[in-house]
């Protein structure tokens, strides 16, 4: 597999390294490239249209956050005190530069991580971790947690409905909702504990002994481009640390 999960992971690592090492202009260019990859490149296509929509939404949100970081730093980080242009606005050059560096860094890093996870299945990810030598127990915990997190919204919804039917003020004012939080959280925690015990038994009843079995079809070695991405990523970090 030319661009399998491990190669994609190496590519994500390279993008992450670039986010730290490169200038904000290049970071913006790479962030646009990531959005392009999500839309056009087959290995990076999201696994469902729902995931695609979520990626798009997140791209807009993270861009707004980056913009917010830039404005905030320009306003409050004076540095040498030099203002931007001839305008009489309290926006400072040093703050702007710092804000751009941080904002674009956050944007590129978030988008590249999301690009990896929206295009990689849970199964592929688990075997990537196992092939990387991560202990089975840790991989299992990660997978079970992700399954739990996935189910969390519907569970919270159910508890909200149940509490609302019993008269809890779950849809009223913020303060009342905050007070009713305990009545929502406590059943959630208790049911989660009970269910995790049952789930453990169910896994055991299907022959699971804490060891995820790797099948022949799951094995994927890092491709040549993957090694190149890793090497470039390491070089980018070294360059940033040693020469800048």
């Amino acid at each position, binding site marked *: 597999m030319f661009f399998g999960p491990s190669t994609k992971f190496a590519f994500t690592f390279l993008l992450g390294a670039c986010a730290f090492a490169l200038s904000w202009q290049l970071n913006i260019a790479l962030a646009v490239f990531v959005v392009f990859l999500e839309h056009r490149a087959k290995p990076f296509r999201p696994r469902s249209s729902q995931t695609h929509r979520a990626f798009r939404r997140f791209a807009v949100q993270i861009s707004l956050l980056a913009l917010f970081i830039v404005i905030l730093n320009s306003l409050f980080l004076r540095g040498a005190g030099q203002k931007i242009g001839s305008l009489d606005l309290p926006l400072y050059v040093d703050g702007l530069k710092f804000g751009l560096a941080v904002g674009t860094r956050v944007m590129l890093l978030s988008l590249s991580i999301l690009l990896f996870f929206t295009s990689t299945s849970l199964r592929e990810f688990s075997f990537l971790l196992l092939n990387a030598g991560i202990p089975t127990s840790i991989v299992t915990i990660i997978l079970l947690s992700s399954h739990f997190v996935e189910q969390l919204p519907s569970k919270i919804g159910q508890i909200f409905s149940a509490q609302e039917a019993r008269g809890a003020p779950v849809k009223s004012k913020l303060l009342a909702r905050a007070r009713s939080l305990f009545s929502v959280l406590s059943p959630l925690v208790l049911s989660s504990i009970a269910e995790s015990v049952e789930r453990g038994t169910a896994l055991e009843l299907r*022959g699971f002994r804490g060891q995820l079995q790797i099948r022949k079809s799951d094995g994927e070695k890092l491709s040549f481009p993957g090694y190149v991405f890793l090497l470039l990523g390491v070089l980018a970090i070294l360059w940033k640390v040693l020469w800048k």
Partner: protein
Amino acid sequence: MEGFMEIEARDFSFRYSESANAALSSLTFAIPSGSCCAILGPTGAGKTTLLYALSGALGAHYSSGRGTGLVRIGGEEFNPVPQNVLFPRVGLALQEPHVQISGLRETVLEEIQFTLENIGLDDNLIEARTIDILRQLRIQHLAERKPGTLSGGEMQRVALASLLVARPPVILLDEPVTSIDGPGCLTLARSIVSLKKKSTVLFTDTGLDLALSVADWILVLAAGHQMFFGEKNSFLQNVQSFSGILPAHIWQSISNKLLAPGTDRQRRFARALGIR
């Protein structure tokens, strides 16, 4: 893992450590290999505890509980209960199917394959068996679906498939009809009938429909006590004499379904039983 296994319990009792009363009290029954036994009784009768005991989950997870008597599965004696989960010799489908979905796999197909991966079968066999069970339970159309997006009935069938794919000689089903609709029940009944050709099947139920259609043996429990054990025919022939000892809801169900004239099916049942 294929082949028949009989199940026997002799004076088998079990009490949870935190409980003063026995969850199961002096159960004695023998279910021949390749037959199907319905365990009937109201909520809290001990039906699930019995299935957990036979699967080994009770001994493995409630070791502080106290058991006495003897359990024999496929000629192997356990005194009093197996201390380890007996999968893949014994397969247990839990009452809540969503718990049985591992969450470790992305699609229904992979979820079913997960069971066989745990057994350590090779890839070709895994593929063949998975396709076979999808066909058998008529859930091919669900193969690429995400397990989390399935309806209750679909999830129940997927949970069942993920168990049956291992072809255990003893199959235990805890209230398999809980979240299945009418047509789903019919499919399940057909599946159980075909399973009997390869395995010994025990299932629990609070109603009578499934028991009357597929079971060969009936075990009735109430508050952990064995109220009746015998062949279905004997249960039906002597049904009126059990009116005093059967749990009220079973008796009510029998009265409604078999004794009161009404639908064709009820009349047919009543005629078969020699009841007007």
